């Protein structure tokens, strides 16, 4: 029972409770100081994660290794940026309540528990701790019909997915006799350890997690929830929870179910193919930027899962690099989306960007960088993300995945280019409001990362390599 190993989570949980209490007591609105405190707590936790020792704790429920460190650091920094995105937006929309950042903080805590889960029970615990604040956040703008609808939809479908996951876990437990990942791995490594019941259980677990990462065919909630939720919440949805769910999927499938690779591989291949194809084609007709980004995120998950489908360490490394790059360019894109206001009112149509290249060249430049990067055009970061997953697919001789992947990336380039076209080729239709400083800073930070990742990719690759090695032993 070495609970000190879980220090980052403990610190984050305690500071979350303290901040919550401190936010309630004063008479006036404490949104801004609480937000700042939450960002501070997240960054503190991120520092602690960097120095975290390796090992298991809390009766084998909790594991800390290079993999969990990489993913947690990613989730924590993404969450911190997510709070920054919400500062100005919430003030203007009249939703500047101190619960908002605290909910994000607790969701991130759930994400960390998920990433470090070493038992089906702690997995479920983390997943629920992540999901419950997200349901509330989706409906945070409660007087707005779309936001309430998004929250309800997300809740109903999320509860269904949790149920499936729980059902799968119980099947696995029933047939294997344990919920601990290490002992599950041992049980399945025996020749007659794999029964049909276990396989059904694994498929249910995959289903529950595929829902969380919004992979086809469990993506249906994504466009509606992305569109309805307040924009900073959407940005958050597409970053920290996605990182956690992908991490968990990788840990579960490559860890305890690593010997069942022949069974789950075809499922992941199909999910990946479906996500890439749907993400490429369904986004073409969208006029709402948030809906478009929802389909784009489905497509990106497809590419990331390609790395998992291969099942090798190179594939896992590709997945990790892909997620890291995706999270930051996605946050940058959402920074632009959050900043889009015309005469004080938030707008989110593609045509609202018309002529941005003239009216606000700096924002337009960052947006163009993000769009070209999402389309996978070198020398931007998005290209390198794709490069490593395609490399894994080629090495594993997954030619269908690789060819479909590159072809769908051309199809999806069309709608990313359309945004560039609207910004640069079309005539302006009135000015957008000037972006607040917090957003321009996020844009510049993520934009510089996206544009200049190519100069110095070695540190991130080394970290991803170490993380992949930790998971695959």
């Amino acid at each position: 029972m070495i609970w000190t190993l879980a220090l980052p989570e403990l610190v984050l949980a305690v500071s979350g409770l303290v901040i919550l209490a401190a936010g309630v007591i004063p008479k006036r609105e404490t949104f801004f100081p609480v937000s700042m405190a939450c960002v501070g707590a997240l960054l503190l936790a991120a520092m602690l994660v960097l120095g975290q020792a390796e090992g298991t704790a809390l009766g084998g429920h909790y594991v800390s290794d290079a993999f969990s460190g990489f993913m947690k650091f990613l989730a924590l920094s993404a969450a911190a940026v997510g709070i920054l995105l919400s500062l100005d937006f919430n003030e203007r929309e009249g939703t500047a309540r101190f619960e908002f950042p605290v909910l994000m903080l607790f969701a991130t805590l759930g994400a960390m528990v998920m990433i470090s889960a070493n038992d089906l029970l702690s997995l479920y615990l983390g997943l629920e701790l992540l999901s419950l604040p997200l349901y509330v956040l989706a409906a945070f703008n409660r007087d707005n019909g779309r936001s309430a609808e998004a929250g309800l939809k997300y809740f109903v479908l999320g509860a269904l997915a949790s149920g499936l996951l729980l059902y799968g876990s119980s099947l696995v437990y029933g047939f294997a006799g344990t919920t601990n990942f290490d002992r599950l791995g041992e049980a399945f490594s025996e020749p007659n350890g794999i029964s049909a019941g276990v396989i059904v259980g694994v498929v249910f677990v995959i289903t529950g997690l595929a829902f969380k990462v919004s992979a086809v065919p469990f993506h249906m909630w994504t466009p509606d929830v992305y569109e309805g939720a307040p924009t900073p919440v959407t940005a958050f949805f597409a970053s920290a929870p996605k990182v956690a769910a992908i991490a968990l999927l990788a840990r579960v499938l490559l860890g305890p179910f690593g010997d069942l690779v022949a069974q789950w591989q075809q499922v992941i291949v199909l999910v990946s193919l479906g996500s890439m194809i749907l993400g490429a084609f369904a986004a073409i007709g969208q006029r709402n930027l948030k809906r478009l980004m929802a389909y784009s995120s489905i497509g990106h998950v497809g590419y990331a899962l390609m790395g998992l489908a291969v099942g090798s360490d190179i594939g896992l490394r590709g997945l990790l690099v892909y997620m890291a790059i995706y999270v930051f360019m996605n946050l940058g894109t959402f920074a632009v989306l959050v900043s889009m206001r015309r005469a004080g009112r938030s707008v989110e149509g593609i045509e609202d960007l018309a002529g941005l290249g003239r009216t606000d060249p700096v924002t337009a430049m960052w947006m163009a960088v993000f769009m070209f990067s999402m389309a996978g055009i070198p020398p931007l970061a998005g290209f390198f993300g794709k490069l490593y997953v395609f490399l894994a697919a080629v090495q594993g001789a997954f030619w269908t995945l690789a060819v479909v992947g590159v072809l769908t990336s051309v199809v999806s380039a069309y709608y990313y280019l359309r945004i560039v076209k609207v910004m640069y080729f079309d005539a302006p239709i009135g000015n957008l409001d000037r972006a607040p400083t917090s957003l321009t800073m996020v844009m510049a930070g993520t934009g510089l990362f996206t544009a200049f990742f190519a100069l110095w990719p070695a540190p991130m690759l080394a970290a991803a390599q170490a993380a992949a090695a930790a998971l695959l032993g």
Partner: protein
Amino acid sequence: MNAAGFPLLSLVTFLPLAGALIIMSVRGDEEVVARNARWTALWTSLIVFLLSLILWARFDQSSAAFQFEEKLAWLPEFGVGYHMGVDGISVLFVLLSTALTPLCILASWEAIGTRVREYMIAFLVLETMMVGMFAALDFIVFYVFFEAVLIPMFLIIGVWGGPRRVYAAFKFFLYTLLGSVLMLLAILYLWYNAGTTDIPELFAQAVPRSAQTWIFFAFLASFAVKVPMWPVHTWLPDAHVEAPTAGSVILAGVLLKMGAYGFLRFTLPLLPEATATFAPLIFVLSVVAVVYTSLVALAQEDMKKLIAYSSVAHMGIVTIGIFTLNQQGLSGALFTMLAHGVVSGALFLCVGVLYDRVHSREILRYGGVAGIMPAYAMVFMLFTMASVGLPGLANFVGEFLVIVGAWKVNPWVAFGAATGMVLGAGYMLYLYRRVSFGKITRDDLRMLLDLSPREYVVFAPLIVLTLWMGIYPQSFLSFFEVSVAALVQRHEAALGAARLAGM
């Protein structure tokens, strides 16, 4: 280190970006920004050109090895590095890129009146990407530059182009991207197969015969679109017609060479057996391109479209030359690429001169221009004759060598290439007659002014180059003779080895 004693190629490659940064930081009202942007871009590109002349002076023509090499660790554990260098095949293309860019900036001096700052930035970024692509000696670095060219070109066509610019820009981008991503898969396979993406190291390793066919077609998908070969050439006329003049010049002058350069640099040395097997396919496609697009060019009513189709035809001759796989054919192909870069660029500039004054590219809109603008008509005639392949001017040497090389392989292929030259004379002379001669039928044409001093400055270097290449081609041929000989020799050795292994 290298012959110059300092990282010359990197400097030539990335200096334009420094210029772009300076332009980006200029503040002030639109007039000031535009003026500063023009001058900064011009000076940056001129300095880059002067620097690149060191390549011309210090290049060792007697060696087929890569020169001016630079190596930096980038991802050492993956076998990917930043590796730059030029040999006889690529050195002149670096020079072509650096020489055409200042001319393009000069040519856009007055033609581009809106968003000058962004325009100049796009051009400087484009220069970086072009030079980097020709100098890259690592496959991943090459691919990065090769693809990155799309971004500035997309914006140049889309922002400063003609009425159908959006359609043309998308078509250009997506066509090229579709081809390139298939090449990416082939690159990844080679990477995985050899454990490195260093091009000289890749040359040393044989690619399995079974994989060569697939890789060949993946490369073909990319390079054929870029060249462009029939039947994937349809993006080119659209892109040319809609692009601003300088965009067309770079497109015809340098970007089209990227595909042919890819064949020379990668397909021939890496895939000797597949190249030999599928050369007839390339011949058929090329001959069709030469004859068909020449006929299409005869029917055009838009000057730029006509020259665009003529580019497809000329590039068909280039691909014939490349796949003859003998000294004459390959040298001819390289020479034609250079000559076409100069001449077709100049022809687009000629069209641009008229377009700037009348704002129409329709051939029938003109007539009798020779009477009003004699100096212009003279320049235009020179480049028309060069394009036709008149001896003493640039194109003749290259096309003649290609036909000689093709004759050795198959006389019918040579016949096809020669037919293209005859038809080329037809459409170019027909174009020139309709624009320059005849009666002046429209009154507004009488007002036209002849070439301005700025335009003289733009055309003078191109005229000198065209004459130089036609009269004394040896000073260009000598650059790549040794490299081409080495390439041919290696190709034959590889085929011989494969035959031995097969017995």
